[in-house]
């Protein structure tokens, strides 16, 4: 077990690819992504009912053990969230080494 940070990002589906590009640029090798999920917030309800992802969210889960990478990631995710909404939560976790 190794201490790490668990980052959880909810963004609207159309910008999922921007988040993935960002993760790759930062050299964050791994992420898990849950597509087409629903939610509600300041920008109204997203029912995941449209043909495009226009009204749906996706959820990224990222385990990262380097605090400076987490720092960079959050600071670069912030403008995406300001522009089109979403949340980013960071918490502590133990990562099972294998």
């Amino acid at each position, binding site marked *: 077990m190794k201490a790490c940070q668990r980052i959880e990002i909810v963004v609207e589906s*159309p*910008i999922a690819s921007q988040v993935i590009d960002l993760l790759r640029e930062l050299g964050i090798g791994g992420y898990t992504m849950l597509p087409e999920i629903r939610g509600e917030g300041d920008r109204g309800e997203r029912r*995941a*009912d*449209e*043909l*495009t992802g226009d009204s749906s969210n996706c959820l990224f889960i990222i385990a990262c053990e380097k605090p400076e990478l987490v720092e960079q990631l959050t600071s670069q995710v912030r*403008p995406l969230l300001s522009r*089109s909404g979403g949340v980013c939560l960071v918490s502590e976790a133990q990562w099972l080494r294998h």
Partner: protein
Amino acid sequence: MSLAFLSNLSSPPLLFFFLGAAAVAARSDLEIPNQIAKFLSIYLLFAIGFKGGVALAEATFSSTILLTLATAMALSALLPLVCFMVLRRKLPVADAAATAATYGSVSAVTFVTAAGYLDVMNIDWGGHMVAAMALMESPAIIVGLLLYRRYSGDADQPMEAFSWSSLLREACLNGSIFLIVGSMLIGWISGPAGMSQIGSFVNELFLGVLCLFLLDMGIVAARRLQDLRSNPAALAIIVPAALLLPLFNGAVGLLAAWVLQLSEGDALLLVILSASASYIAVPAAMRLVLPQANPGTYLPMSLAVTFPFNILLGIPLYHAAVKLVLP
């Protein structure tokens, strides 16, 4: 004309659109699963594209076809200009530009519904109109973006995360456009021999699938209209604009059809292409190239107001106008 209205409104596809809207109004939990809705739209694009391609393979190539395609592209580039000039008085520049792009571009599903209407009415239409539709998708996006850069004041400032290549990809290679154009090419290559293989799949299911698809569209459009209600200020601008823009654009399209002396079917399709507004390809592209624009403005306009208006009242209205102008 009133007869055409009535017969359009009592055709099963439109009645299913109403049924979907009624389900939302009655707060029923009727719902078409999301992947199914995508499947239905894939089928419709596939079928119309393929039919158009086979028709193209059987047609003799004429200069009218080329002229129609050129006109379609020109319409898509010019219509946003006027829309923008009007809209920017009421909306922020970014929103006005995105909305102008939305209305300059086209809605593939509206096109497909109109083609189905023509088939039911036994009116011929040319397969090249599918190509015309595809050509009208992108110019509006580029013009919209140029308008924004010209009028927003931050033209010099380098656009964050923007690249022309990703813009063009979004504009031209959007999945819906790619599928309908690809299916058209395949229909054109495989011709009547191909049609004999998949003809019953393409033709006999078409209107039934359209019914289920419009049922879903009715549900989605009604939900977006309900969301709009909570925003009366926006409503006062958005709804009138979303009703006037298709009429204006449709009139310009009719003028072009008259100049080209198109056949009845092709004329109606050109008008409906002009009058329709994108709610799939353009909104997706705008997220990337014009993130400053508020999707809460242009998306409900095209999806919740203009789309239902066009398929319910627009098609028979434009048809009546076409018959008046092009006897």
